């Protein structure tokens, strides 16, 4: 007798638990306001990334096409993957001395793991995170970027 | 059991164990021949009960290969580090402990695969990560692979 009671109790509990589950999905079915899908390419205009979003490493330039990079190469040694190459050039200073400045700051985006050590280690805060995240290209060589813009120069008050 | 008494206890079990200074754990270097016996007793004796092998690492110290066993007792909460050394870099072998601590089976396979330390009586000593027929053991200091290892 007891087992028969258990048999029906089983059926009851099973049906009850299944209905509880169906209640959840049923509720979401009838509440389209809960939909969380983002319509990505359409919402490109309104899509705002967070301020600290790590899209890529950039070198901010001011309106006079000046950056803060001295070309010291600390970021190059800090990078664990070798995704930064700093090429230096020598220029003649007015006082006759030769001074090393940055020629090209090459950033291999394809090798970057976004650890942020270059930005953290930079003594003159020349590097920063960019918000751009649509990095897909057809040719891998396009991922090698030169961060300092052509013709740019260093901001005057940066001391090494 | 505190460190001092545990030290006495281990030295009582294996008199020729070599004590090694370490701030964190009590560390002993055990002769390879005695390792299996010692492990059995470490696990079974009531006041020791080292039933949890929480780490097994192979280390290449260039002069010798070393297997490091990190042990803990879940009842007495004391820890112990044992080391076994073998100087033969080609056929160097130590006794397996995977019949005592089952987790050692995969850890020993890993150590064999990457470090080239053989384990006697291991039930299934094959390469674990690398494919059969791979030449060399990558975690060794003298391993060269110009294709896959890129020096920056």
């Amino acid at each position, binding site marked *: 007798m007891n087992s028969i009671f258990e048999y029906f109790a089983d059926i009851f509990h099973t049906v009850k638990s299944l209905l509880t*589950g169906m209640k959840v999905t049923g509720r979401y079915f009838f509440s389209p306001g809960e939909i969380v899908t983002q319509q990505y390419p359409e919402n490109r205009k309104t899509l705002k990334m967070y301020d600290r979003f790590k899209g890529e490493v950039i070198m901010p330039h001011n309106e006079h096409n000046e950056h803060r990079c001295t070309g010291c190469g600390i970021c190059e040694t800090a990078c664990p993957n070798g995704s930064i190459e700093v090429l230096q050039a020598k220029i003649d200073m007015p006082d006759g001395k030769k001074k090393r400045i940055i020629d090209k700051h090459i950033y291999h985006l394809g090798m970057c793991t976004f650890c*942020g*050590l270059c930005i953290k280690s930079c003594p003159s805060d020349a590097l920063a995170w960019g918000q751009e995240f649509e990095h897909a290209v057809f040719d891998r060589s396009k991922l090698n970027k030169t961060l300092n813009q052509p013709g740019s120069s260093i901001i005057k008050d940066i001391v090494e | 059991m505190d460190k001092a008494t545990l030290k006495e206890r281990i030295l009582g079990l294996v008199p020729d164990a070599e004590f090694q200074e370490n701030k964190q754990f009590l560390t002993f270097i055990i002769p390879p021949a005695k390792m299996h016996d010692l492990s059995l007793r470490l696990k079974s004796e009531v006041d020791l009960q080292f039933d949890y092998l929480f780490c097994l690492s192979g280390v290449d110290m260039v002069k010798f290969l070393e297997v490091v066993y990190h042990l803990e007792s879940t009842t007495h909460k004391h820890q112990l580090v044992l080391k076994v050394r073998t100087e033969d870099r080609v056929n160097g072998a130590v006794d397996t402990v995977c019949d005592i*601590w089952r987790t050692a089976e995969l850890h020993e396979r890993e150590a064999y695969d990457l470090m080239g330390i053989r384990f006697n009586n291991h039930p299934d000593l094959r390469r674990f*990560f*690398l494919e059969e027929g791979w030449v060399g053991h990558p975690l060794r200091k003298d391993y060269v692979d110009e294709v896959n290892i890129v020096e*920056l």
Partner: protein
Amino acid sequence: MKEVINLPVKNIEEEEYHINMGPQHPSTHGVLRLVVSLQGEIVKSLKPHCGYIHRGIEKMCEKDTYPQIIHLTDRMDYLSAHINNHAVCLLVENALEVEVPERVKYIRTIIDELNRIASHQLWWCSFGMDMGGLTCYFYGLRDREKILDIFEESFGSRLLHSYYTPGGLMMDIHPDFQKNVKAFIKYFRKKIKDYDDLLTGNMIMQLRTKGVGFLSKEDAISYGVTGPSGRASGFSCDVRKHHPYGVYDKVDFKEILGTKGDTFERYMMRMNEMHESMRIIEQLIDNIPAGDYTAKMKAVLKLPAGEYYQRVEASRGELGVYCISDGNKTPYRMKFRSPNFSNLSALDHISRGVKIADLVAIGGSLDYVIPDIDR
């Protein structure tokens, strides 16, 4: 005279055959290959084959400086990236005997627990999918998104953060961090009821998991099965309790311990841990002390020669970092005792004699992350 033909008598009971679950299989959560010996639908034994995504992180560590190692540990168990980072940071701090500011400890603890919740959410939805309930997957990911948004706001990335550095943090938390975390806890306490209604209470799921895939306490200890999977068997292995780090010694939380050791118990462990993690966060979130977000560290970190071992409780079990330093700025040998590696070793033992559908459920309940096994 009649010819007597001797037909080979085959015993069906004995005939086994092998199928491969993985490397490209919907249930393996990564590229793990399990060669399963089957007899009918019953699993006789299985052999794991790993290494499909082995990256040699331990070898790479030998040429990286300590701050550079952090970004490699992210990529081991990518679902508990922060906790992996924490292990290496603690190792370096303890070796150098650096006292990190209280603020850092609080923030790290909160973020570890958030990371644990996020990881368990992903486990929950993939477990549901393994059981055949696809809807679970979307609910789990929907709620995990909220945590990832908090992470992204504070550290800029969603999965691989590299947020901890030896001595502190990369940057201070976002000003909205506390507010958002509190909002999330409020939100998730509501949504976790859906989880219970949809899957936990479901009779089909309970029938499929209760009494299936039993692992005894002795075996759990012997196999080194830690984390929720080990605690389901009654193996008290919570590193947060036994070897406290961060501010775990200051918060009040229970170590969730099970007794039955079956698949359902392993499931319940993680469900309860999510509640417990929320409790921990609630205790800490309003009390983050003011202060610096990093301790003063030298420019080049050199660990004194010697051996160091650091254990933390990652979301899947005990993560150990074993480091041998020869006094240089790079470690001589770095070994990660990854929780999934040990948990995987018990899979063969657990799954003998179960059906192939149960194997998937057991795999889901052990919750292995393959990059952590392969390292």
